[in-house]
């Protein structure tokens, strides 16, 4: 009982202190620029309410139009244009290209990295920065080949290893700097 009364007093005190702060700031802002609107919690009326409503409607109309345009352009885009604009085609030959991959499986020292191609690549964990690289971490790679294939003697078709080949350059540094 006493605890409930105490908590109620404390909350009332907190609320009153917040109100004091808000009034202080609003008075400060109204002091600096006289025509500033009042604090956000007081209801708008008249022209201010109408203006708010109209800006909301215009913003929503703009968003929905952009969304529709985006989705319709996604539906209407042909396979040929999708292919032409895809990163894989824009990249060109895969030899010695730097790409970003993501580790999706780890077997002790082997890292299985997916970089957005048909196959994944398998790289050995580097000795120095190896412990940071776990499942889900993003790494930089230098691609050598998108698919390891070779035609052996007497065979009709190529034998494929169902893997790509890439050299692991290290973890993606930009993310750590951003964090």
């Amino acid at each position, binding site marked *: 009982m006493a605890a409930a009364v105490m908590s109620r007093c404390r909350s009332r005190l907190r609320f009153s202190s917040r109100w004091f702060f808000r009034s202080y700031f609003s008075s400060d802002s109204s002091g600096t620029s006289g025509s500033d609107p009042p604090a956000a919690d007081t209801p708008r009326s008249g022209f201010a309410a109408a203006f708010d409503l109209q800006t909301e409607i215009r913003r929503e109309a703009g968003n929905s139009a952009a969304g529709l345009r985006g989705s319709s352009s996604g539906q209407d*885009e042909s396979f040929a244009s999708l292919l032409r604009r*895809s990163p894989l085609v824009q990249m060109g030959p895969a030899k010695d290209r730097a790409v970003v991959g993501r580790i999706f499986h780890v077997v002790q020292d082997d890292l299985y990295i*997916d970089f957005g191609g048909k196959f994944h690549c398998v790289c050995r964990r580097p000795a120095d920065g190896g412990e940071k690289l776990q499942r889900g971490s993003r790494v930089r790679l230098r691609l050598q080949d998108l*698919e390891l294939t070779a035609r052996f003697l007497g065979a009709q078709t190529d034998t*494929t290893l169902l893997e790509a080949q890439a050299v692991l350059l290290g973890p993606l540094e930009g993310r750590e700097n951003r964090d």
Partner: protein
Amino acid sequence: MAARALTKGLLGLRQLRAATTGYSCGGHQYATATAAKPLQPVHDDVSEKALSLPLDKPDFFRVAELFSVKDLFDARVHLGHKQGCRHRLMEPYLYGCRLDQDIIDLDQTVEHLQQALNFTAHVAYRGGVILFVSRRRQFGHLVESTAQDCGEYAHTRYWQGGLLTNAPIQYGPGVRLPDLIVFLSTLNNVFQQHVGIRDAAKMNIPTVGVVDSNCNPCLITYPVPGNDDTLVAMELYCRLFKMTISRAKDKRRQMELVHSLTAPSTPSS
């Protein structure tokens, strides 16, 4: 071993259920002429209307809405193998070859996939047994869980030689074979085609198969040219098949309820 026992048990159960409800699907229930007499299909107005109604429209289950070219593109379905691995009979389905890598034509894939999903939906609507087959070890669990989620069957382990062709002797007389086999990868390893394709063609079982640029699309009833090596693509196929089969089964339940409510009361057999 356990998978085979499980398949056998489930197939036996399915046959009992089919016998009690009286729906028959296809004439390949028996591989050889055995002593047991075939089931007499029970026809009445309700089931006849329910069975014939979906056949009036070309896309009754609206499977074309489930995916688009953009979805296939984002799932890397258009990426094929290298030029040297190409199968001669896959050339009509290829858009071209870019820096030695074959690109599969997604416009054709969309049409083939729509036909395959439509057929799967019709088979599921009529209470058919669908078997998912894939020998890719990295996607075995995905395929098995897909089959379990939509209430159908999967076989992702070693394929015994006489599984379809010698079924009455291996599993006992009166075993019901699958009505549709969906191959999510048609190859055993990179050199051999899956034995199930040839066996299904021998037993008159229609097949749906995802054929990559190094696969042979000949014996498959509804080939779907597409990538079968990437996880994203396999997840897309599994999701599409699961949605199609669930949609078809829900439609069947709905149709039965509607017709049984509106039809006049018939004396039960």
